[in-house]
């Protein structure tokens, strides 16, 4: 039943694939960003899963607890989350500008307009 024990890794892989699939399949730029975020989040889960120590608890000092999870991946992922938020913010603002310039946020329509030049 090793397969089931690794469920959080499988969720991470599943999320990553779903996220990438959305980026590939959806023509809408906002949805692409959503997919991208999902892809990033899957990696956060991956990292957090890595930090798990069997039987450990959250790495905050608690009386009587000996086993803590590894705090380092958590710290790292805080940074990564910040990066993810920043990326999403930049991406969304770009979409706003694109929408102003083209009047649409659909990728195929944008390409159509540019090729008409």
């Amino acid at each position: 039943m090793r397969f089931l024990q690794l469920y959080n890794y499988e969720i991470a892989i599943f999320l990553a694939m779903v996220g990438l699939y959305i980026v590939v399949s959806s023509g809408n730029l906002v949805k692409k960003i959503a997919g991208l975020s999902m892809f990033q989040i899957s990696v956060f889960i991956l990292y957090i899963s890595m930090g798990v120590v069997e039987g450990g608890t959250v790495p905050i000092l608690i009386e009587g607890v000996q086993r803590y999870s590894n705090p380092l991946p958590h710290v790292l992922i805080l940074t990564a989350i910040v990066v993810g938020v920043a990326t999403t913010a930049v991406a969304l603002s770009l979409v706003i500008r694109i929408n102003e310039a083209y009047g649409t946020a659909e990728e195929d329509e944008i390409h159509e307009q540019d090729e008409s030049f």
Partner: protein
Amino acid sequence: MLSVLANDLPALQVVVPLVSAPLCLILARWPRIVWLLCLAASWTSLAIAIELLDQVLSGGTISYAMGGWAAPWGIEYRIDAVNAYVILIVTGIASVVMPYANQSVAKEIPADRVPLFYALLMLCLTGLLGMTITGDAFNVFVFLEISSLSMYGLISMGRDRRALTSAFQYLVMGTIGGTFILVGIGFLYVVTGTLNMADLAMRLPEVTQLRTLHTGFAFLVVGIGLKLAMFPLHLWLPNAYAYAPSTATAFIAATATKVAVYALLRFVFTVIGPVIAYQDLPFGEIAKVLAVLGLVTGSFVAIFQENVKRMLAYSSVAQIGYILLGIGLATVMGLTASMLHLFNHALIKGALFMAVGCLFYRTRSVRLDDLRGIGRKMPWSFGAFVIAGLSLIGVPLTAGFVSKWYLVQASLEVGQWPLAVLVLGGSLLAIIYIWRVVEIAWFGSPSTRAAEATEAPLGLLIPTWILVLANLYFGTHTGLTVGVANLAARTLAEGLR
């Protein structure tokens, strides 16, 4: 005071541009002061970089504990011949681009966004320098994202609305690349429990057979490959270079891919180690195949481009093929060639994009059609383009020749004749696409835009010609570049053979 600072040079290398970025916004009401600040920051960076290289060459590797936290736990800045050399390239280009920026930016960016532009440029510089200088794997990711995010902003400031879509494309691709790198670093962490590169290098040999490691390496290579525009992951690059403002293009084209190449070298040679990468895994073969594909397709596509900046961008893809080829050969000679081309290509592409920026400054277009006959109207700008183009082709006495010479030698050394032929063949293709521009821009009858053009102002010409002359200088005085590149290659290749 100075001696105290001198001990903190590695930190200052990153902190100086980092601090100047918010200052740009605080001083936004005085654009001229903003520019002067950035100029000072980039020149200071260059001075620090020169000092660091000097220290490394005389005293060996510098290790600097960030915030006083010792190495495996804290973040270490670790400078050896390799990254001292790359830092020199990045700061050198920044120092030349910054004087150029003043007039070019004023013309291309709306006045209210100029301070923002400079802030982003400084952030970008920070990110690139940080990526290079740090000795911590995760820190690489953080600085990579700093540079990437600021690059998206820089690109989106182009006047053409396609700059926006290009920036968006790059953002999606860059984020995927960054995330791949993150995954790769995570896998390395899982198998070793450390993020310090030197520490990783020590512990990885214990776990060479683990698939986790192999998968992590695959993620790293693809992720970094995206940033360095390795074929076929280069698709974001042509648009990004083509529609960004001239200054941004010149800076990014000359530095960003170089730093990504550095990151690849660092991970392959220092962290993973050449034994695993080349002997256990076929990294060398894949790199060679992709290098050749990039070299050939990049050059061919460049021939057909109607937009000069896009043409140069595709040529960058081809030139990255050369660099990758040297890495794929996995010999000291090959690495020397790669390191040399890293430097020389920065000079070449910087000069070319700056020259094109000069043309754009007067004609407001980079389409070949509009540039018809411009050569005779703007002989100095176009002369710079031609000489840098000769260097790109690899004509003797220019910098481009030196690196190609070494690359050919490296290919012959391992008995790979076809590669040497390909390298020379690539030069022939470069002749074609550079010649196309020369033929149209020099011999064509002037277009309406070209007819009204006059020579670009000195503020643009002088920095451009500095890079052009650097191309000629380093084509004839190879002592410095070859010496350092060879030292860097030997540093990298310690684990080789």
